[in-house]
């Protein structure tokens, strides 16, 4: 049911594919773009294109980067003996903002969830195990989301590296349970980090 000119309809359709944007918001944003100055729209389009052209996963930790390796992996001041495993790249930003953590990261790409058909092979768990073997890692901090799937993922990782003599810790509670790391405020997350415990 096309109500608007085809390009406008197309924009609305594309926008409503985005997370947390419903049909109404999509329409509002589309008309904002239609009414706005051309430079603004071209700027947005270029930013979208640039991100897709230039950004790729870091070949060591799978954080997002423009280079082979991300800035964190290349930073020699960071403690390479500790790896913090997170579900998604944006969790790194949340943890970095706490200022509590100086080690490296590993982006798993999600959490174990049979209901979503996600098996260990669908995550970068084998890559993590390889890193531990190759980098002489002393501690893995598993910072998956504090919900059922995140916790199961932490337990599975602990089991996978059991023989490697690496310490596995998880964040202390204090995080809103059932929630997403993404939404935790810095203070809470900082405290949780300070009180991480052995798994």
């Amino acid at each position, binding site marked *: 049911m096309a109500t608007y000119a085809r390009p406008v309809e197309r924009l609305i359709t594309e926008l409503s594919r985005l997370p947390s944007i419903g049909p109404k918001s999509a329409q509002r944003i589309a008309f904002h773009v239609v009414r706005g100055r051309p430079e603004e729209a071209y700027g947005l389009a270029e930013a979208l294109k640039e991100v897709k052209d230039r950004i790729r996963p870091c070949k060591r930790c799978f954080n997002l980067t423009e280079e082979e390796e991300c800035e964190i992996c290349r930073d020699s001041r960071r403690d390479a003996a500790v790896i913090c495993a997170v579900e998604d790249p944006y969790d790194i930003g949340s943890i970095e903002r706490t200022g509590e953590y100086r080690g490296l990261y590993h982006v798993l790409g999600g959490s174990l*969830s*049979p209901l979503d*058909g996600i098996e260990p092979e669908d995550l970068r768990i084998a890559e993590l195990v390889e890193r531990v073997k190759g980098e002489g890692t002393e501690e893995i901090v598993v910072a998956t989301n504090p919900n059922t799937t995140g916790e199961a993922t932490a337990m599975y990782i602990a089991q996978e590296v059991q023989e490697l003599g690496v310490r596995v810790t998880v964040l202390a509670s204090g995080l809103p349970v*059932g929630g997403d790391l993404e939404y935790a405020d810095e203070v809470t997350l900082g405290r949780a980090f300070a009180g991480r415990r052995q798994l």
Partner: protein
Amino acid sequence: MSPHIRALRLVNFRNYADATVLLSPGLNVIVGDNAQGKTNLLEAVSFAATGSTPRTSTESEVVRWPAEFARTEMRVVLGDGARGDERAVAVGYAPGQRKRLTVDDVPAESLSSYAAGGAGVRTVTFFPDDLRIVKGAPSDRREYLDGLLSTLRPSYARAVAEYARAVQQRNQLLRRIRDGLSSGKTLQTWDTKVVDLGTRVLQGRAAAVGPLGDFFGSAMRALYGSEKAGMGYSYSAPLEGYCEALTEARDADVERGTTSVGPHRDDLELLLGGMDLTTYGSQGQQRLATLALKFAAREYVRDATGEDPVLLFDDVMSELDGRRREYLAEYFQESTQAVISTTNLEYFEEELLSRSRVIRISGGEISSPADSSGKRDV
């Protein structure tokens, strides 16, 4: 005195467009013909106090047709009720959106955790459909037990919800293994998770059944007679040995695609003179047992918190004989606060009514003698 409700305002709730009702400590009787809104009003009191309805799982039903949102506002009196010790608790609800809960205009996380902090009201409700706790499936009885414990301990509520999610995950994994979609490498992980959460649920229930069964026994003695009544808990796998039982059931579970042991397969047995009321109880015995379960819940809450919950009982008198009606009326009158509905005021003694508040309902409009001026007090 335990926390109780002084006033309640309903906006777009069921058949109420905008109505205010004042409530007293002790007995409040809602009277009206059929289909006028008695049950709806009791439901609203519960909604206002807990932020959810005990009556239906389709919550959007409570929004008055064709409005888009429902709202309840209540005044809770804490402690000994100087006006300064009042809280204004509001629940705003639009289907599909997060509920808005406020306490004195400050957003609150959830009303049950608020009540757990000692500043809200707890409720024990009785609706005629509750007969299914005694008569129905094991899940109805588990829901009774889990519901009661959840209002008392948010951590238990969380364990129950997370346990259910972990079992769902395990079930899906079992099916994926059966269908060759998963190597099953993570089964141990999910088993550990399920046992970990299931143990918390089992411990909570195990600790509750003893005292709750005693309260049930005394309530049945008062309501039914001298035959000894009690509760038993029937385990699909006992606490010690739970982990082993789950491991042992693996192959069969993979074949069936479901988890066959754990608290989600247990039952609460209701016994009268050693007889299982669910299977063998007469209609009359089952009705009284349902009431006794609610009385037991009240005692349990009182025992655990030191505070008397507000009793919300729908149409409870019509099925009872004169002696039991009299007993119930006194029971309610002596509680901190009870709100009871009836079609017939004659079920209550004249003298008792003179000590109670009578609320008349007609077509979603409320009038009660003490505040018939229509003045808004909320």
